[in-house]
């Protein structure tokens, strides 16, 4: 009994000491940082980056781009946090960044919703928040400073403009296209599908069918198989990412048809991952429109603008390339703007960061 009492007493004493220590320590060290704060602020910019995870090559390249941009040599101190696909981890990390008094917070959100509270805390602490990749759905757009990401609709438009030019160059009489969509509701799916649907109306193509392949190879293959059974006149497949394209190619070849410029069916794809471009090099994928993960430089641009006291654009899009097999089309025009088309070679693939 004595021992237990002693133990209980010690616990209380220690936690009291902790709380007391916490308070007093907090004050002393803060005055220290206050003194040194002014000179460290001018030399090194601290950036807290909360990343979704490392689930794909695209994501890894995205993280690497941030790390390369916000390096010590460039005068930054990057605090990188991998949320392992959990929103609650990201919320915790942002709270941590706020307490560290980072100069800027960069957030690649796991989910679109649920950011109001923590972004409000960041705003109260006067820390600008830059959102990358996915958009956030918040009650007040002032809760974040800027967004950097891909213009998925433009990607779709570019791909379709290329197809139109290519068909003219090759003298294809009619285009019977099927669309293997991404996961329904994902912003990439919405944008890329819209790009295609607008083009179908504009150029008078036959859109035979649209079905979701959920951005996976297995589902892409399954969808392509059923489409091939239904229609025997398909000559173009519009896959909304590389994985679906791999599945579609397998399905087409298994059905005894051929892919490529001289084959029965042209396969178009998005993302331009390393494996995707390797297939583009061989012509299995005729066109691969890039979804650029290298957000670092664009985010830095925004930070430099904020530092200089300028107001950056609320929405900033990253530059994205178009990669094709062969050089039948040199450039495409979308909404009055020209975009160069790169012919995929070994060098192009080896030069890429991801």
């Amino acid at each position, binding site marked *: 009994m004595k*021992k237990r009492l002693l133990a209980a007493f010690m616990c209380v004493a220690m936690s009291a000491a*902790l709380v007391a220590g916490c308070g007093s320590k907090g004050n002393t*060290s803060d005055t220290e940082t206050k003194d040194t704060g002014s000179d460290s602020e001018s030399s090194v910019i601290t950036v807290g980056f909360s990343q979704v995870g490392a689930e794909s090559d695209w994501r890894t390249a995205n993280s690497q781009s941030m790390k390369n941009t916000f390096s010590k040599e460039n005068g930054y101190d990057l605090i990188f946090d991998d949320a392992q696909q959990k929103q609650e*981890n990201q919320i*915790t990390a942002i709270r941590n960044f706020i*307490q560290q*008094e980072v100069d800027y917070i960069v957030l690649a959100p796991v989910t679109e919703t*649920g950011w109001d*509270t923590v972004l409000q805390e960041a705003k109260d602490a006067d820390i600008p928040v830059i959102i990358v990749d996915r958009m956030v759905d918040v009650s007040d757009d002032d809760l974040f400073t800027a967004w950097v990401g891909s213009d998925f609709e433009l990607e779709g438009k570019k791909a379709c403009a290329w197809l139109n030019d290519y068909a003219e160059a090759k003298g294809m009489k009619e285009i019977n296209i099927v669309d293997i969509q991404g996961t329904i509701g994902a912003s990439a799916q919405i944008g890329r599908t819209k790009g295609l649907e607008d083009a179908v109306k504009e150029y008078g193509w036959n859109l035979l069918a649209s079905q979701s392949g959920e951005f996976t190879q297995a589902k892409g293959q399954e969808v392509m198989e059923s489409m091939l059974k239904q229609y025997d006149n398909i000559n173009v497949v519009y896959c909304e990412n590389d994985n679906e394209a791999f599945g579609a190619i397998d399905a087409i070849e298994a059905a005894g048809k051929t892919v490529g410029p001289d084959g029965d069916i042209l396969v178009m794809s998005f993302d331009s991952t390393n494996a995707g471009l390797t297939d583009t090099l061989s012509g299995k994928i005729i066109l691969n429109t890039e979804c650029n993960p290298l957000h670092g430089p664009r985010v830095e641009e925004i930070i430099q603008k904020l530092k200089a006291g300028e107001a950056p654009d609320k929405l900033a899009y990253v530059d994205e390339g178009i990669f094709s097999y062969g050089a039948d089309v040199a450039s495409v025009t979308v909404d009055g703007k020209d975009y160069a088309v790169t012919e995929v070679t070994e060098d192009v693939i080896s030069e890429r960061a991801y």
Partner: protein
Amino acid sequence: MNKLKNRTKLNGSSYLLMITVLLFIVMYAAGMIAFSGKGFAKPQMFLNLFISNAGLLVIAMGQTIVMITAGIDISVGSVTALVCMAVANQMENHGANAYVAVAMALGIGLAFGLVQGFLVAYLDIQPFIVTLAGMFFGRGMTSMISTEMISIKNETFLKWANYKIYLPIGSYSKRGNFLPAYIYPTVVIALIVLVVIIIVMKYTKFGRSVYAIGGNAQSAMMMGLNVRKTKLKAYLLDGFLAGVGGFLFCLNSCSGFVEQAKGLEMDAISSAVIGGTLLSGGVGAPFGTLFGVLIKGTISSLITTQGTLSSWWVRITLSALLCFFIVLQSVFASMKKKK
């Protein structure tokens, strides 16, 4: 004899508890020294441990109780997801008010507790299997409601979620402004739950019965305790706390979606174990679980503050700690046997 055994057990567990508390203090103090320039010593950093883990704390309380009965509940993560989704869906798509949402959250928790408790206590099914089924069911129901993310925009709910309670302590920012430290109502609720559970487990007949049946169900029955009823009550309480915790979790994330709170049950179990609760039952303290939760929070905030370590180190450190505590527990158990 029985009484003596109980006493040595409690002594062993109070050593474990002391080690846990000490470990937390050492870890936090080390963090304050190493990262004092990075804000680790601020009171707000400490309070953030509670803000971020309020839901987990309440859920881990329930977990501790069922673990003391020698049971386990792995459905709590799914219950949390279901609560968040149901609450979000009712308020956003069916126009329910926030009070109805609270009732719903508690109702869902109680329903899970009742069914699982009945199956465990009266049909003698393994708790692991029962709650495994509960886990799949909860996650499945969540996706039945909606597979899309639902953002909560209900005004009353957001008012609760964003209501800051300022404390008289605080710290100075780099620019020299005084920033008062604050907590959210979720923290207050979690702490109230903690105190109530500590009292219930220590001073009520129900609490003592839970320890007794967990220590040895056979002898507890011979002592005239109603083992089945106590077990049912324990699961009911656990379910209720999962509902409360789920709602607190929801107040923190303000959204419902299928993948939410995945693996939360494991965080709750590991917090309880680090806090000195034995998986074999009969030993454990809600107060220890609090420190289990705080240690988990501290590890992740240390690693985030450090800034260059991969956040998988949180898991690695936690697993090392778990091993350490399990070994300690078995050392204490074997010491007890020798006596």
